[in-house]
């Protein structure tokens, strides 16, 4: 039985299908253990040098070593009860080598000199075995060793130091607030992740990083048993590269929207959102069913982030473009010839999309990627034109570049690192414009908030997105709630219909905490920033059915 299946089955016993199917790695440990210090950097350096030397002696021409300790704390509740608390720890070493011009990888939890040397030898043996299938040797972009470096997510409150009881109290308050405001059911969850990872390479880099991520979320369900109807509304929080301070609910980080709606920037008020969610779920029960047709869409950053992720983030992954993901995630319409032409109109002139792993508070922010490349920001779409991709050290030469983009990531010490999406964000508009200003200019439109159903083809042309809350816009004003809304478009057509951007005061990040890719599948976490944005004449369908 695969671990995933085991988790699904355990979930059945706990809360039927209401528990999200989330990957848990490692062993459950007592909560105090999550705060124990692990190995010091000097010890990790000694261990990594054992690996570097062992691999070299077996014939590796390049070696990198990741000594990682991965901590997770997940809290699941429904209504008045705690369903599950997961405290997990996983540690070990992953060794990647190039021998005979071919990659090899092996990993072990036996972090002793002997265990590490054996693991390094295995990695070299795998590389040599696989080299039989290799036609052209791996070419790595140059990366000078950076020596001893440290980097830490700039958190204010380490979530692992906050007592469990405080977390349970918060979720009970969230659930209580939702139930008091008309919810029939509520589930709420907290996810905390800490990656303590040490990277060393034969280039001479020794990098110690301490990465923190947080995601508070809930689902509120409104029920009308007599009518046999139910509606849900998920939290409009965002997963962040922050500590527990994200849950402070600072007034200064709230953005006032139309009709008393609130958006959250870098601080989230979970109880406040639960109250609004319960009311909105109830309102959805009697909302007007949308009339299918063309509408101008005003998309909130908490919704647009997923559209950016699917229609710009994934198609500009260079490994997909080249065909490495053809059997699972798919390939890409954004082929190299379109980039080489330097005139492929991915979007309208307003569309400027940047990739970065540096933006504060984001899920992608780290000092160095998992092959020791210092992180940076670069353009993917400039003034509507496709100008670049996301690449790793063994890929950038294809783009005629000499320096990696720093997009290499592995979700655990025992997974091999490969190209993963950095933060991909739409730049805010330069003209002063609020959401209210934007809505005033729309005659027939829909304002969409929150992440809903999503689906896109394997080359990222045709997509369909739902949302959490939909408001009809009539003659520049919000005219009430809509239901059964989903929009369908083609990526290039959609981004070319981008006609207006709100300014930086409205800019917020959306995040994906468990983005899957690869076979066997690995997860990664990534943020997508934007301000509220308008798209003209997009095809909206009605998703209401009777069974």
């Amino acid at each position, binding site marked *: 039985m695969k671990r995933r299946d085991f988790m699904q089955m355990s979930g059945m016993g706990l809360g039927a299908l209401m528990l999200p199917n989330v990957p848990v790695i490692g062993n459950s440990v007592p909560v105090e253990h999550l705060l124990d210090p692990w190995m010091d950097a000097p010890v990790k350096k000694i261990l990594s040098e054992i690996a570097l030397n062992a691999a070299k002696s077996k014939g590796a021409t390049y070696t990198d070593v990741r000594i990682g300790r991965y901590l997770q704390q997940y809290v699941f509740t429904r209504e008045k009860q705690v369903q599950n608390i997961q405290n997990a720890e996983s540690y070990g070493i992953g060794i990647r080598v190039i021998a005979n011009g071919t990659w090899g990888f092996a990993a072990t939890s036996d972090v002793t000199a002997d265990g590490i040397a054996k693991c390094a030898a295995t990695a070299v043996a795998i590389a040599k075995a696989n080299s039989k299938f290799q036609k052209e040797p791996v070419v790595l972009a140059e990366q000078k060793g950076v020596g001893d470096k440290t980097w830490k997510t700039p958190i204010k409150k380490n979530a692992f130091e906050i007592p469990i009881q405080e977390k349970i109290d918060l979720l009970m308050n969230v659930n209580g607030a939702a139930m008091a405001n008309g919810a029939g059911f509520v589930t709420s969850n907290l996810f905390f992740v800490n990656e303590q990872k040490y990277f060393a390479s034969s280039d001479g880099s020794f990098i110690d990083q301490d990465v923190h991520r947080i995601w508070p979320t809930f689902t509120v369900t409104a029920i009308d048993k007599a009518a*046999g109807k139910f509606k849900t509304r998920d939290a409009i929080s965002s997963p962040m590269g922050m500590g527990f301070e994200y849950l402070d609910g600072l007034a200064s980080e709230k953005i006032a929207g139309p009709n008393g709606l609130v958006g959250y920037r870098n601080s989230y008020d979970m109880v406040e959102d639960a109250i609004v969610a319960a009311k909105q779920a109830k309102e959805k029960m009697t909302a007007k069913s949308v009339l299918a047709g063309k509408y101008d869409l005003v998309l909130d950053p908490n919704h647009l982030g997923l559209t950016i992720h699917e229609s710009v983030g994934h198609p500009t992954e260079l490994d997909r473009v080249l065909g490495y993901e053809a059997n699972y995630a798919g390939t890409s319409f954004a082929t190299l010839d379109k980039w080489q032409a330097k005139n492929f109109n991915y979007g309208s002139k307003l569309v400027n999309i940047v990739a970065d792993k540096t933006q504060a508070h984001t899920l992608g922010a780290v000092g160095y990627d998992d092959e020791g490349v210092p992180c940076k920001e670069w353009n993917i779409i400039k003034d509507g034109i496709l100008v670049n991709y996301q690449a790793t050290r063994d890929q950038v030469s294809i783009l005629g570049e000499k320096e990696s983009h720093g997009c290499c990531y592995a979700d655990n010490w025992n997974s091999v690192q490969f190209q993963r999406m950095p933060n991909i964000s739409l730049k805010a508009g330069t003209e002063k414009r609020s959401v209210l200003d934007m809505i005033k200019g729309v005659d027939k439109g829909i304002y969409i908030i929150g992440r809903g159903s999503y689906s*896109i083809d394997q080359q990222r042309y045709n997509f369909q997105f739902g949302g959490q809350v939909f408001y009809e816009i009539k003659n520049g004003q919000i005219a009430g709630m809509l239901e059964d809304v*989903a929009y369908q478009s083609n990526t290039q057509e959609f981004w070319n219909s981008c006609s207006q951007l709100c300014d930086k005061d409205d800019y917020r990040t959306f995040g994906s905490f468990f983005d899957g890719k690869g076979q066997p599948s690995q997860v990664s976490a990534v943020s997508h920033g934007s301000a509220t944005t308008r798209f003209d004449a997009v095809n909206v369908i009605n998703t209401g*059915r009777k069974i």
Partner: protein
Amino acid sequence: MAIILSEAEAKALLQKVLAYSKADECEITLQGEQRGNIRYARNEVSTSGSLVNQNLAVKSSFGKKTGIATIDEFSDESFEKVVRRSEELAKLAPENPEFMSIIGPQKYLSSKGYFESTAAVNPDSRAAAVGKSLELSRAQNLTAAGFLENETGFSAMMNSKGLFAYYPSTSVNFSLTVRTPDGTGSGYVARGYSDFSKLDTAAATRIAIAKSKGSVGAKALEPGKYTVILEPTAAAVLLENIFFRMDARSADEGRSFLSKQGGTTKLGEKIVDERVNIYSDPLNPDLPASPYSGDGMPQKRMNWIEKGVVKNMYYNRYWAQKKGVEPVPFPNNMIMEGGTASLEDMIKSTKQGILVTKLWYIRTVDPQTLLLTGLTRDGTFYIENGKIKHPVKNFRFNESPVIMLNNLETLGKPERVVSTESERNYMIPPMKIREFTFSSLSDAV
């Protein structure tokens, strides 16, 4: 110590761990697995790896307080430590209002899901299996990307009320996408077996190659309602959304497609065509499964939908007690009965229709109606007067599997398939469906 333990070894180990328990009640689950994989793309091996994993989880309870602790390093010292840790966690835990005491000894069916042929797979036999596939695609100047993963494992459990269960199993999954060099054609195949000797990668590769070459030059058809023939791989990803959502508690709570006006459920009601029969059976020879569930409940043959009528829903032990019914565990496999028609027969009997070989990126649009969206992928063909006329461009669909099974025309012979969404294996027949809703076109190949 070996990773894959025999029944006697597993029993001895569990007895040893259980002896450390001082809790009111204690239940221990034990798993071991050896997995190996090889991944290739652009006609070259891209990554390969192996994973050895063992895990022991101890659940201790004092009254209604429960704690769970796990280890993956096995030694006498760690066994005692993990039991103590689970007891400490239990003492700190809040009382669980839905606490259920563990169950006593059970009788389980004997299901054969372990095959030596699969347990013997090594890097060489994996590479050889993939080599046969690569040879064929390279010879025809086509581009292959594939993944082969084999697994040998066992699970066992024991508790302080005398329950003991043990089940060894093996599996191999192979999937392959073959594309034409210009990217205008793409074909897919996936195979899942318990017995590695049944896997013929060359035969499977020929199917993907044929679909890849056959899908070149696709013509656009107007979106709309069409008669479709869904190959089992395509049908599985729609039907599993029914399988996953047959939970009684959600239905009783009013938040399931099986909930009904007035607060009741559709249990006992006909919801789909009367030719639809869906059941689970751990003894199915083509799809053997563990004879017990995660909480030790025996799995037996269970009808879920019989002649179109909802016969059973899953009841966990807490919900069953609350509702005064027998618990019904979530099944370990799912089988849909079919007819005798072959895929060719079904095509021959179709005047106008579309053959769908694979669906992709399936997501729920509305959990109330089970409306799903997704797209066709890797080979979609137009059928006219009983023959495949030409490939067609891919469609996006918006359809509920409940509505779809009401629009059933014909069922073919079931075969074992791998879900391209969940990777679970099922027995599913090909099926002809009328008025399947395609809502837009996709340029993707």
